[in-house]
């Protein structure tokens, strides 16, 4: 501004080379969930001999794959400070749609419309994108808050699922999806590779592209983004569609992985994927966090679920333990974040 400001700049001392401590504090949002993960891994390794085996690592990877694909899309939405409650429902509808367009064995009693595999996949992708577009339109064109827009979509997609399978179970899906969902390459399950690819791609998009930057900035301060000439509605619409498409992919692969398409198959994935994103440290208020956080969150929940399968405790108690550990992880996140903030600048 003028000379006296530079002289007065002692009020805002330029931070010296940041020490290790400072970096650690500023990364608290990322470190805290990571520590939670380490503690869980150590705990289960000690408690169960079958937990820390190579085979089980493969299990955990496989088990978080479907959630991971959904959570990747959800990360975009949550970074924008919105929410998508329809992910699991859209996953289910898409999985059912791809089976609906595939020739089923005669004993499966569904009046479906078989088309060639690639057409079926394409149609399923169109279907989930269309549901995403409806979410996006509701949010940005009509102006319904995403929480209730996607709540309605959750029911609509469930209704579509019901109409398509009519209480039956479909088993056949296109070969490509089948391979991706339950095949493996060199010992690594394809579904893990797909999930890794989706997460990596999401990370690259969020970190290195213009669109990704807009996502962060829209989440960080929506009004400022609009005042800077960013098409906020476009970004918000896009993240809703991305989330729906990720859910759709997850739904198709999930059907392949579980071997069947039926109603309500994916219901648990809603809470799991939201929990993964949030436990990983991405803020519900937008702008902070990212795919790295989501991956840590995925593993926290994945290790927890898998580890509890390895230890012999009362099945009824497990539900409570899971809830308590989830709460604990959230508390740790909040305190870590607070630590970071009080020691900031």
């Amino acid at each position, binding site marked *: 501004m003028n000379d006296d400001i530079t002289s007065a700049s002692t009020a805002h001392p330029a931070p010296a080379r940041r020490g290790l401590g400072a970096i650690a504090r500023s990364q608290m949002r990322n470190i805290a969930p990571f520590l939670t993960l380490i503690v869980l891994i150590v705990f289960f390794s000690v408690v169960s001999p079958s937990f820390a085996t190579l085979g089980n690592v493969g*299990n955990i990877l496989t088990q978080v794959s479907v959630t991971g694909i959904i959570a990747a899309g959800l990360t975009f939405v949550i970074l924008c400070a919105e929410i998508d409650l329809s992910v699991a429902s859209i996953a289910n509808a898409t999985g059912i749609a791809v089976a609906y367009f595939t020739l089923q*064995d005669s004993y*499966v009693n569904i009046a479906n419309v078989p088309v060639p595999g690639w057409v079926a996949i394409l149609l399923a992708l169109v279907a989930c994108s269309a549901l995403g577009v409806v979410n996006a339109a509701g949010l940005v064109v009509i102006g319904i808050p995403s929480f209730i827009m996607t709540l309605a979509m959750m029911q609509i997609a469930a209704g579509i699922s019901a109409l398509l399978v009519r*209480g039956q179970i479909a088993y056949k899906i296109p070969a490509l999806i089948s391979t991706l969902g339950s095949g493996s390459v060199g010992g690594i399950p394809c579904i893990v590779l797909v999930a890794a690819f989706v997460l990596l791609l999401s990370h690259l998009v969020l970190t290195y592209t213009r669109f990704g930057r807009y996502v962060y900035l829209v989440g960080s301060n929506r009004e400022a983004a609009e005042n800077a000439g960013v098409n906020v509605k476009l970004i918000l619409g896009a993240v809703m569609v991305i989330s729906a498409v990720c859910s759709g992919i997850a739904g198709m692969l999930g059907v392949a992985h*579980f071997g069947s398409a039926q109603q309500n198959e994916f219901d*648990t994935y809603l809470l799991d994927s939201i929990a993964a994103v949030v436990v990983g440290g991405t803020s519900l208020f937008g702008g902070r966090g990212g795919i790295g956080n989501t991956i840590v969150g995925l593993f926290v929940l994945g290790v927890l679920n898998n580890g509890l399968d390895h230890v012999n405790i009362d*099945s009824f108690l497990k539900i409570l333990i899971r809830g308590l550990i989830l709460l604990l992880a959230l508390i740790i996140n909040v305190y870590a974040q607070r630590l970071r903030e009080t020691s900031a600048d």
Partner: protein
Amino acid sequence: GRSEKPLKAAFSNAGLQATWCAQGKQAAEWWGKLFNVEVTWFDGQLDAVKQRSAIDNMASQKWDFVAIQAFGIGTLTQPVQKMIDAGIPVIDMDTLIAPLEQINVHSFLAPDNEFMGGAVTQALATAMGGKGKIIMTQGALGHTGAQGRARGFQSVIKQYPNIEVLDTQPADWDVSKTARLWETYLTKYPQIDAAFFHNDDMALAAYNIMKARNRTNILIGGVDAMPPAIQAVSDGRMFATVRNPSCRIHGGAIVAGVAAVAGGEKTGKGIPKHVITDGPVVTKANAAGMQWMQDHFLI
């Protein structure tokens, strides 16, 4: 016999999302047509609250007879009692509406879950030669059917000291949870000889995991014997399943209702309070016939 004047019946089952229930609906409608009964459906949507509302609405309308499969035991007592008080024969299918002490239904048509669980376990144990390692994957622990199937399993296993039970965790009828559990089992236990699932859907989901890991040597037993499972038994993916005769129960409810209304059949005299409707164990040997009978809503 067939009623001369068309009868109006109301049916409700746990939730049409379930294949077993969907097949039951078709069977009821098929037998209803034969017996001149117009069937109106009140879907329970696999939810106690929703089914209760549906039954409340059912109870405020007029019916010749009513057949209900409860989703949550004890959640429908009041409206059902109202219909019984109004003189409508209420046929209870598959699951108790309430403990029989609490409510006086026309008849209770249900399989013996303990018998079904035991029968499949017996078939598995025999095939294992009386020794080896087995895993039971349970349905939801709160489900009476699952509890019965577990009892049947345990009562048979007790007789085989050389069979070791590796694990009995519940998968809550959920295929994704089944997949997760079985991924863990397959790494945790290098030897698994047989697996008993509380229903076929979970069995087929687990088979998919076994196949992906080349562990298809595990003998799989399930419950329900719906067409996909019969197919799986025929082509050897599953070893055995036991028929939970949806058609017999739902068709039976039509027959019982018509007999009560048109034939004046009295509860406890003409028809017993409790009709056990078990189906047979299905193996490769009888699979084809079982499929044919289902195609024609006979079992």
